[in-house]
């Protein structure tokens, strides 16, 4: 189809879809009136039953923990996929030794502070996610971003150290696989997959929520490594366009 025909077909179809949406919306409870049982019950039972004050994280890592296992593997598979798809590009560019201009001291100072901030906040989000907002995913992305920034503002001249991230591969697998192992451990002990095996602890402290902290850390490791590998795959060979005359400076 030419673009014009495509748009001519798409227009009415979108109107139709919009009409369907409008019809569905008319059947929804008015904004703010929602009283469904699922969330209502969870808001009342998760804290007493699992001693996690953050019900969302309790839901993510316990009540609907297997969804999160799938989610970890979605990210994991995507990273494997990106490695697979970019393997040619990576290979062809690996041979070239690439150097880059170092950032100025001011940039490095500001950047360094941001790195510290990013990494610290990331770790904090990972650690306290099941008590207050945060969690493995958010912390992991932030942590990975911080580390990446460390690299960008750091004094590495050579791009090749990025290959080191491939040492992250086993670590990422450990995070994703660890989630499954925690689930299987429960199964082996005669309870359901992903059932809590540790004590519940006191609500509001780090030793609360049974297996939730373990799962949270497994996913934090998996996400941090996954994001680092993802960034590295995309950035490895192309951080800043390199002018030949800069190479020696």
């Amino acid at each position: 189809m030419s673009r014009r025909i495509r748009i001519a077909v798409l227009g009415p179809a979108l109107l139709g879809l919009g009409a369907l949406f409008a019809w569905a919306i008319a059947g929804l409870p008015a904004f703010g009136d929602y009283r469904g049982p699922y969330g209502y019950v969870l808001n009342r039972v998760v804290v007493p039953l699992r001693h996690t004050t953050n019900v969302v994280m309790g839901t993510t890592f316990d009540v609907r923990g297997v969804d999160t296992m799938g989610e970890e593997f979605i990210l994991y598979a995507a990273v494997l996929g990106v490695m697979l798809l970019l393997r040619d590009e990576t290979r062809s560019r690996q041979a070239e030794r690439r150097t880059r201009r170092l950032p100025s001291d001011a940039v490095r100072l500001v950047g360094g502070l941001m790195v510290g901030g990013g990494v610290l906040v990331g770790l904090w989000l990972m650690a306290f996610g099941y008590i207050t907002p945060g969690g493995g995913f958010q912390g992991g992305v932030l942590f990975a971003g911080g580390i990446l920034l460390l690299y960008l503002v750091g004094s590495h001249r050579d791009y090749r150290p990025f290959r080191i991230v491939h040492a992250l591969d086993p670590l990422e697998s450990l995070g994703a696989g660890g989630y499954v192992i925690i689930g299987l451990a429960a199964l082996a002990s005669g309870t359901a997959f992903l059932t809590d095996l540790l004590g519940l602890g006191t609500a509001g402290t780090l030793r609360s929520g049974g297996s939730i902290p373990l799962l949270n850390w497994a996913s934090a490791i998996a996400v941090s490594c996954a994001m680092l590998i993802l960034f590295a795959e995309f950035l490895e060979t192309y951080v800043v366009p390199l002018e030949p005359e800069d190479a020696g400076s």
Partner: protein
Amino acid sequence: MLAATLVPLQAVAFGLVALGAPLVVLTRDPLRQALVNGIYGVSLVSLFVVLQAPDPALSMLVVSGIGYPLVILAAVARVRGHDREEKGEDR
């Protein structure tokens, strides 16, 4: 008291999101789009906050602040870099 200020805030946040989406789509230049998409991300974050969803808000914040921009910018840079190399060869 809190509830009274919340409703207008929510209306504003929804309005920003509704405006942001077409802006992202209509920005055809990928580099500029990455920027607009970041702003759209922030509007989503603010919406999630006023909808009492701090966890998704944080998640959206790190994704639209770190995740998306890094991969998009890297992709744009690479594509442009290739193009430049090719143009260089033509000359």
